[in-house]
């Protein structure tokens, strides 16, 4: 699951920064914008089967790759 999430992020953000620094803030660094987060939610649903409504999750809860993985582990 960890790898799946990291691959997803790499593709959506278009850079491997997310793999090298798993505590990078995805929003402040500009890697994930409104379109990016929408794509992320769709792919999480398609590939991991976890359905997350847009206002179900606060941005702070998933602002770094590590936090996102932690959040998804809890939701599974």
């Amino acid at each position, binding site marked *: 699951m960890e790898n799946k999430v990291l691959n997803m992020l790499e593709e959506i953000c278009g850079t491997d920064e997310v793999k090298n620094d798993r505590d990078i803030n995805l929003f402040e660094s500009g890697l994930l*914008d*409104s*379109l990016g*987060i*929408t*794509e992320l*939610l*769709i792919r999480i649903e398609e590939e991991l089967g976890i359905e997350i*409504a*847009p*206002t*179900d999750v606060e941005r702070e809860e998933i602002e770094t790759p590590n936090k996102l993985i932690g959040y998804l582990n809890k939701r599974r």
Partner: protein
Amino acid sequence: MIPYSGLYFFYILSIAFIPLILLGLKGKPIKKYGMIMNLFMLLLLFGGSKIQTVCLVLFYSGQLVLIRGYIYLRRKYESIWLMRILVALSILPLVLVKASPYFTSWTIGFLGISYVTFKSVQMIIEIHDGLIKEFSIWDFTYFLLFFPSISSGPIDRSRRFMEDINKTFTKDEYKRYLDEGIRKIFYGAAYKFIFSALISTYWMAKIPEAKSILNTINYMYAYSLYLFFDFAGYSLLAVGTSHILGVNTPENFDKPFISKDIKDFWNRWHISLSFWFRDFIYTRFVMRALKKKWFKSRYTASYIGYIITMGVMGIWHGTEIHYILYGLYHALLIISTDFFQRKSSWYKKNKNNEGFNYLSTAVTFNLVCFGFLIFSGYLF
């Protein structure tokens, strides 16, 4: 009466706050007193006008029936169409109020109807998403008709609000809320009654009436700064007042004039509104468009999403042409910024350069001010 408009309002507000503050400082629950005080403040704000009172009561009852009913229906039906019908019904009063000048000479509605409507629509959508399953009617009433933010926001979210009012604060926690609240109220008062008033009296009012290019540019900057201090000041007053009631109403402004690009600006200006549009229109539209593959490129989906979102944002302010143009102007800015940032290798090379950031901030400031010039209606 218009909230935060004069000494009389603040006088009554301070007196009404005394018992609540005493309760809070003793570490006792403040919710019940807060609810009674809310009702009393609503009477003060709307009681003077029969039409406003009737409209408010009708609006509230209608929304209550819709939302309560939907909680019940949602357990049986998941259909997205049911949700859409409920959203349409929920917006109907606002549409009637906005359209009323075209078919009646009456001024119907109440101050804040366009803001309160956001709160019901948001609840309906979250009920559909399965995020809201139950709520108490008292909490709902307090949320929907919360006086500090009823007339012009900030637009709060029901789950956040209801969590706040059901917290019991210790003495120290309440004291921190109170301090923060008072501090914000002072800042808000300074913004609204000193800075915005000074700009209005000594700058805007002194601009000659002739609409020359120079006067127009002058008005553009004056109006932009006036609008910021007036609205940010009002928002601080609302947030501060909420704090004293133990409610952490979200901030509405975060130094918008230092935004480094237009997307950054919408994370800093009228935040509760722009996040509402982001969460309940843009994201949902794009999600659907991508899942159903309506467009070849995901960027097209995103751009159409921006046009819809910003278009609705414009028209929500009013049906006048300058509001619609304001929305479309911002859609155009966001789309071109996004396009430029994705395609330009020059941008990618320079985006972390300090000089570039100053330039980008200055350009953004001017683009934003030009937007406010459109918004003000001065050009038409």
